[in-house]
């Protein structure tokens, strides 16, 4: 499963190279890979960066820079109905301080775009 990956960031790094390979239809050296991670996705950006650097090299995509757009979660307070943004699970409502809330977004994880090395296009 997932090439025998042992932690989920490593599985996800393999998934990323598969998605990139499918989208490009070939393996080429990349300058940059742009991704978006939500703060409630359960993904450690630094762990993913470490894994992706290795996997990209092994899979024939060179040594691209991984540019991570870390979004803010959107939450709605169940005590005072304030809609607010948070950078992690622990940030309470700015209106009343409650952490009782419903999650509107924040679990996203997408490969947005890649930039090819000069001479590859």
């Amino acid at each position, binding site marked *: 499963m997932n090439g025998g990956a042992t932690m989920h960031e490593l599985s996800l790094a393999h998934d990323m190279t598969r998605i990139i390979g499918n989208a*490009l239809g070939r393996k080429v050296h990349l300058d940059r890979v742009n991704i978006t991670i939500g703060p409630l996705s359960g993904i450690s950006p630094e762990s993913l960066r470490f894994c992706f650097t290795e996997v990209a090299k092994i899979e024939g995509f060179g040594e691209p820079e991984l540019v991570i757009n870390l979004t803010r979660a959107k939450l709605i307070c169940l005590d005072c109905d304030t809609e607010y943004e948070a950078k992690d*699970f622990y940030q309470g409502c700015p209106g009343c301080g409650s952490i009782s809330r419903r999650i509107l977004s924040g679990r996203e994880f997408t490969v947005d775009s890649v930039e*090819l090395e000069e001479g590859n296009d």
Partner: protein
Amino acid sequence: MCDEVTEQKVDITTSVMSKNDRFAADNRELLGGKGIYTLNLISSPGAGKTAVLESMARFFGPRMAVIEGDIQTRRDAERIEKAGCQAWQIETGGACHLDAHAVNHALSHMNLDPDSLQLMAIENVGNLICPSGYDLGEDMRIGLLSVPEGDDKILKYPSLFSSINVLVINKMDLISHLDFDVDRAIDECRSLNPDVLVFTVSAKTGEGMEEFCGFVENQFSG
């Protein structure tokens, strides 16, 4: 998925979980189409997932089947078979979670006769972090926490405990020896996850198991 190559930048805009989510949708369609209700059971190693499933196996008998996810060994599947249910072991060979593709593969090997089978329980790899991001196609996600682990674990692993439908607190037979505050655990879980339902059980003594199994049964026979 891939737009035109313009200069050097190629737009991809694909969710990394999209392949998993497609298999999850397939699993949901396959099992749902047969009227089989599916559980995804997640906990740390040693919280008692297999013991809870053995107890459930005694309640449901052959109406339940179990998919076991472990790094290695068929030990858990053998325990479930002994308790009276069909079991399929997925040996992940190191991976820290099950994904929907592995479950899809397991389902292709199992007897899914809807005349006898009503409930599919998937026991995830013991881990409070990695399984939380993977939809397996379940109807209900259950987080299992045992009292020796401590009542602070819910806020330490919010990604999982905010994604579950049901919290089962196990090993209640040990509660008098420990400082685990059940009310605190429930309050903290509800703060992350306002709709969560909570059951307190001991798979060992059977305390609370009939109520929990009855609740699960109501989901598909109600």
